[in-house]
């Protein structure tokens, strides 16, 4: 039954998303110039409408067909590496999103060499609750130094330089 509830949430969210998308498309993208030209608006608009139709179909099927969907029973849920139905780990997901965003921001401001240990430390402290100092130090420094040596020095990839401060 958890599956069904979840699908209703999914369908409803997607329907709302589709309506917002379609509205924005109509509002912000100009139509074509004519003369056989399919304007820039047509495709995003069609995609938005298709998504709306699919979301409504999903909802409709759930309402009409009250028996649980038998097919979802096989295998997929037995996979330990996938999140379980109803078991979305909201905290880690949101936390990681914030950390990735911060990482991107810090890369531009303080460069790869400083941003990477900061982020790795942050994840270890917040997500994994690691408190052992040697572990924290070895992981953050080890990862940063090995990536820097391999990519910047050996392979010559441009790793971000900071605009506020820059070392390396």
């Amino acid at each position, binding site marked *: 039954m958890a599956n069904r509830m*979840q699908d209703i949430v999914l369908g409803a969210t997607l329907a709302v998303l589709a309506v917002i998308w379609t509205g924005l498309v109509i509002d912000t993208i100009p139509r074509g110039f004519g003369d*056989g030209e399919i304007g820039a608006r047509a495709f995003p608009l069609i995609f938005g409408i298709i998504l709306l139709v699919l979301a409504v179909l999903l909802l409709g099927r759930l309402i009409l067909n009250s028996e649980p969907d038998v097919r979802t029973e096989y295998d997929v849920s037995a996979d330990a590496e996938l999140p379980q139905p109803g078991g979305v780990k909201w905290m880690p997901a949101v936390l990681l999103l914030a950390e990735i965003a911060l990482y*991107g921001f810090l890369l531009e401001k303080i460069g790869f060499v400083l941003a990477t240990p900061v982020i790795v430390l942050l994840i270890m402290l917040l997500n994994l609750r690691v408190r052992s100092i040697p572990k924290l130090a070895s992981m953050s420094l080890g990862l940063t130094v090995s990536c820097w040596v391999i990519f910047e020095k050996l392979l010559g990839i441009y790793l971000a330089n900071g605009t506020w401060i820059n070392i390396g």
Partner: protein
Amino acid sequence: MDLFLHALSLALTPLAIGSIGLGALVGLIFGSTPGLTFTVALALALPMTFSMDPVPAMGLLMGTYIGGMTGGSVSAILLGIPGTPSAAATVLDGHPMTKQGEASIALGTAVIVSVFGGIFSLAVMIVSVDLVSQVAIGFGPAEIFALVLFGMSTICGLCGDSLLKGLIAGVLGLMIMTIGIDTIEGVPRMTFGSVNMLQGVNLLVAMIGVFAVPFVIEALSEKTNTSAQDTRVVRVKVELPKIGLLIRNAWLMIRCSVLGTGIGAIPGTGGAIASFLAYDHAKRFSKEPERFGKGNIEGVIAPETANNAVTGGTLIPLLSLGIPGDPATAIVLAGLMIHGITPGPALFMNHASEVYGIYVAVVLAYIWVLSFQMVGIRIFVHVLKIPRETLAFAVLVLCAIGAYSIRNSAFDIYAMGVIGVLAYLLIAMRVPITPIILGMVLGPTLENEFRTAMMLSSGNADIFYTSPTVLIFFALALLVIGLQLKSEFMRKTKRQQQ
């Protein structure tokens, strides 16, 4: 014959062989590291070729290209994170094989069929370059649109248990790719006035997000004691595929090679569409289609053969017409140009021995790749022994490096994070994520070719039903959808009878 000997003398110098090997190695490293892509490797290799002779220079670039294309399967199989969009289809069966302890067999098979596909397509290209390029010229916007639509129809076969959810995923992929500047009219779409949004969502960045971020979230949320957690048995054995396995699948390999070569030859398509079509084809013609998605070796053979067959195929429009099929081949084109080898119809008149030298270089590149991988597989499988948390950190940092390296923009890291977390939520809702990638790969081509076709016909839709090629692809797309609906229906009635 003289020409051929001259070509051999150009390609079999120690410098040429060495630079091909170096290219293959660098390509393999970039291709097999989650997050890094071989387009970036090619961009880095290009300046190194400036001071070289043409054949070693092209050898370095072709080696990187081929190594990267082959390497893409490694992280797809081991971690479920494809190294290139072309390897996205390989995840479907390759990663389940790893979970069943058969990682090395999957990896070994992937390498061998890749080499087979690559050499096969090279042979086809050498024999029929003129003929094929004539056919390729006939592929206008309407034909390419029809082909891409046919490619989209394979979403049906990737949906897992819910066709509806698969289609939703596909549409989401299509929507993501409309963000940014519309190339045809130059107007911004869904950018909310932000300059950074103008660059749109990069396909590779989105791919990294969709596959890598959910893995990282799961691995990093196991916040209990890190070492005690790893009680699961890690079975790491090195076992290469048996000859019998390959012989049994020879016919499949040949079909997928033909498919890959053909698609590669059409400008503006590429490896991803070929591998998805090949996967779908293998599943549809298999005696046991229900085993696909659960670790069927055929699901590795088909896409890997096809995406490497594309490498030979793309050489046809690249050399005979001067048209690059994707950003990677665009860099190969730049390499040709800077050495004075201008692609186009006059190429074979002016630079025949260099061109044959490039052919020899491709063969050498595959020999290098094969030998590197035979050693590499033994090393790669030990990645599975690394504790999941440590691996997740490495994947996260590598993906950030990779996403950033494409356009040197923090925007791409934000995009990776947002798309990745959304993909995680979708997975939790049992929405298959592979169709998102398919939608993203094909969306821009689908839209642009359709609009160009309509402009060419001054708004008259008959351009889509007067060309026989277009009609054939439409028919194939309908056939795929029809077959899918039929099998859905049969499954349903079967269940009701039980």
